[in-house]
């Protein structure tokens, strides 16, 4: 008897675990919406799922009855029925009504999500981010704040953030699943949309959302991840101030870092900027901006954020992101040089 109870308890836990895991990770899943856009889309998913499950139940009901009642038992020839106008009208009209129930909110949401009038308003204070996608990395420019960062998008919570998207090489697609659906970064034109990051839900997700590239763009398409740091408006403003105050590259703190900075200035600075100011045109920003590299959470968007991985990455980026545009653009580094570079890069911080 006790064993049975245990077994029941276990299965109960299993079901609960399944339901919980059924929604995916809060920093990644579309089923844990963390903002207005994702909420709207989640509601649409829910509505369509309910309608569709209803349809499936009706079909399955007929299906099961047919299976049990009309198997061949003898050699009789059934009555040849041509059809039934009444029935056929029923299963034409009801689907039309069901689709209308779905079509109306779909159209209204489609227009709502595309509403970016605020972006054209010169006096608006709304945060705008120019997203520029490159082969396997992301560039984020804040035109009003005149700062640039890469790989980790920083956004204020509880307000609409507007995005202006374009690709600098091949087509990519900008997607933060937990916060809202994707929009392609075309090579031809600028696409615009908005997202909103919910403060409470961001907290639950650890304030760090996962972003993905959702359009096949070459060998390392799967590794073109980015991260989104959502923070309160005050924190965001403080971060912007810190970024704006960096006019010259951060001074190296240790002798080793100083050595690293020398190497960096010789071999890396041709592509990688270490000041956040958006002085250069977007076409000249050919590699991720590293101004606040020490404060990021991943190396190259995918590797753990520590010195060892920084060294691994510089040693041979090709093994981590095949087809990247960094490989072969700089001389081979010795172990000492790598140590120095890693020390310098990890020390690049803008917030005190």
């Amino acid at each position: 008897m006790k064993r049975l109870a245990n077994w029941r308890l276990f299965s109960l836990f299993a079901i609960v675990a399944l339901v919980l895991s059924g929604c995916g990770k809060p920093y990644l899943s579309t089923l844990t919406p963390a903002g207005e856009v994702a909420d709207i889309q989640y509601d649409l998913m829910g509505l369509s799922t309910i309608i569709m499950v209803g349809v499936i139940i009706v079909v399955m009901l007929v299906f099961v009855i047919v299976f049990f009642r009309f198997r061949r038992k003898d050699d009789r020839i059934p009555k040849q029925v041509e059809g039934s106008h009444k029935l056929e009208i029923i299963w034409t009209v009801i689907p039309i009504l069901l689709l209308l129930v779905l079509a109306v909110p779909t159209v209204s949401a489609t227009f709502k999500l595309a509403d970016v009038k605020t972006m054209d308003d010169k006096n608006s204070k709304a945060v705008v981010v120019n997203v520029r996608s490159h082969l396997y990395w992301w560039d984020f420019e804040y035109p009003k704040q005149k700062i640039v960062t890469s790989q980790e998008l920083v956004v204020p919570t509880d307000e609409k953030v507007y995005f202006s998207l374009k690709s600098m090489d091949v087509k990519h697609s900008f997607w933060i699943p937990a916060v809202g659906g994707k929009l392609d970064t075309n090579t031809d034109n600028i696409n615009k949309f908005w997202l909103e990051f919910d403060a409470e839900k961001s907290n639950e997700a650890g304030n760090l959302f996962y972003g993905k590239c959702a359009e096949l763009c070459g060998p390392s398409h799967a590794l073109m991840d980015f991260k989104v740091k959502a923070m309160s408006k005050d924190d965001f403003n403080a971060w912007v101030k810190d970024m704006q105050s960096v006019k010259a590259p951060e001074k190296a703190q240790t002798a080793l870092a100083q050595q690293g900075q020398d190497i960096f200035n010789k071999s890396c600075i041709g592509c990688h900027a270490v000041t956040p100011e958006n002085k250069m045109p977007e076409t000249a920003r050919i590699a991720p901006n590293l101004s606040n590299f020490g404060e990021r959470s991943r190396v190259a968007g995918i590797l753990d954020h520590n010195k060892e991985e920084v060294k691994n990455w510089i040693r041979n980026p090709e093994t981590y992101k095949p087809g990247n545009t960094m490989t072969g653009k700089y001389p081979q580094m010795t172990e000492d040089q790598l140590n120095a570079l890693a020390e310098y890069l990890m020390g690049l911080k803008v917030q005190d």
Partner: protein
Amino acid sequence: MSTYAQKKGFGATLWDFLTTVDHKKIAILYLIAGGFFFLIGGIEAVFIRIQLAVPNNDFVSAGAFNEIITMHGTTMIFLAAMPLVFAFMNAVMPLQIGARDVAFPYVNALGFWLFFFGGIFLNLSWFLGGAPDAGWTSYASLAIHSKGHGVDFYVLGLQISGLGTLIGGINFLVTIINMRAPGMTYMRMPLFTWTTFVTSALILFAFPPLTVGLVLMMFDRLFGANFFEVAQGGNTVIWEHLFWIFGHPEVYILILPAFGIFSEIFAMFSRKRLFGYSSMVFATVLIGFLGFMVWAHHMFTTGLGPVANAIFAVATMAIGVPTGIKIFNWLFTMWGGSVKFTTPMHYAFAFIPTFVMGGVTGIMLASAAADYQYHDTYFVVAHFHYVIVGGVVLALLAGTHLYWPKMFGTMLNETMGKITFWTFFIGFHMTFFIQHFLGLWGMPRRVFTYLPGQGFETSNMISSIGAAFMSVGVIVLLINIIVTSVKNVRVGNDPWGDGRTLEWSIPSPPPFYNFKQLPLVRGLDAYWIEKMEGKKEMTPAEPLGDIHMPNSSFLPFTTSLGLFIAAFGAMYHVDDKGWALPVLFIGLLVTFGSMLLRSVKDDHGFHIHKEELMNEDDNKGVKA
């Protein structure tokens, strides 16, 4: 003298198939070639699932993975599903309308060889420096950016095989319009013939946009044009439009014949005429029509704006209505019937819930605002495998079992058929159901790997195990085919015993002229009507007379071979290879030479004389 019934050596048989213009033999060619490419595409699918079974896997490299997914999609759509559909159209449609062959037998053979050489050309890329790697959609910015000759193989291979498909479609249209037997009005045509008809019309209108797109890309990649070079004023979104104006009707080109095959099966094995035949025909035509109005739902995230997205969302939802009509008509065909669960019926029965699943996720995807979340994720992968595998492939497997006796004169083993069904069916749901959730949990499609810690591990493993089950099903089918062919137990006209349409009124396989005398059709399910009146065969509509037949020809083969050779020249011309230009011209010379030869040579075919036909009867004692 009748040579056609004699046993022949291997060489003679091969030559026979290389030169045949008989729709039944061309059907077998399509079946073999399509089946071969289906196995290749299947192996590619297995590689994909092995690579994704565990996170950070290195079974294949990132670059190779992209080649595999590109070739899996391209092969399955263009080189497996399409030709297999064509196999059944060729094998069955002329018989169903009571015709002796298609309208243009020569063109029919040409269509096959073009498809075949295009497919071979495309697959040779594996051995010649790498396969295409820009996805089966080959979006322009990535395709232009792609190094090596992979995408060139895609462009030229699809161009050649696409030509074959296009002329095949035209041929079927002309055949159905002109060659129906006396009494076979449009509204008495079996549903498979109707779907062949609508599909052929779709091919006629859908393939030209693809051809245009491929020509533009060919000029960009091979001859220095800039149609898709944004920096030079080109535009890549145009490619997306051209591709999907073709690509969306293409899914209906595949699914409508599948609907046709299932309609035949439901009616046959329920021993009932198709419920709501007229509305089924109407729904087929409507789906074909609406199929051209919805292409931009593949581009909801391209940034076309809310007006376009809303219009295409509503149009897409509208397709759900005729499809729903069909589902209920099938259910009510079985309702009140006497349903026998043969192997084909297993597939047809299982198709209903499977396809409904694929259909409802289609409606979910149609909801534009929500599609921003689904687009390019595993949710979409799950959806289109539910419609294409759950619809088209189940129909092709069902059709293989159903029409095998008609094509080869012997029945596939039913027990093994059911084993194939169950392993394939269970494996299919195991592989793809879980992928809906992977997509919703944030896994993009076309990723060569995924990092641990994102909650994707277990589900991907389940999916990969499912793929193993599907493979077992296909292997059992192959064993079944071999065993059946070795045993070779001959069957009669109507081996299933429940045949309703004209193809079951003649021997299996039919004589090369199909009908000794064209049959008189007295209503829908013509053969069933005669059977119900106690007759064993159709009433002839004409007296026994001479039959005019076309001669075999090797020219379709050489015409296609020429383009195959020319494609190599065009492709390597880019590398400044000295031999490239001569090869291009030699190839074109072979093609145009063959065409010229065909034009100047008078080929009136031959006649089978009345006396020979009567001798046939006496010799074999078989009534046709």
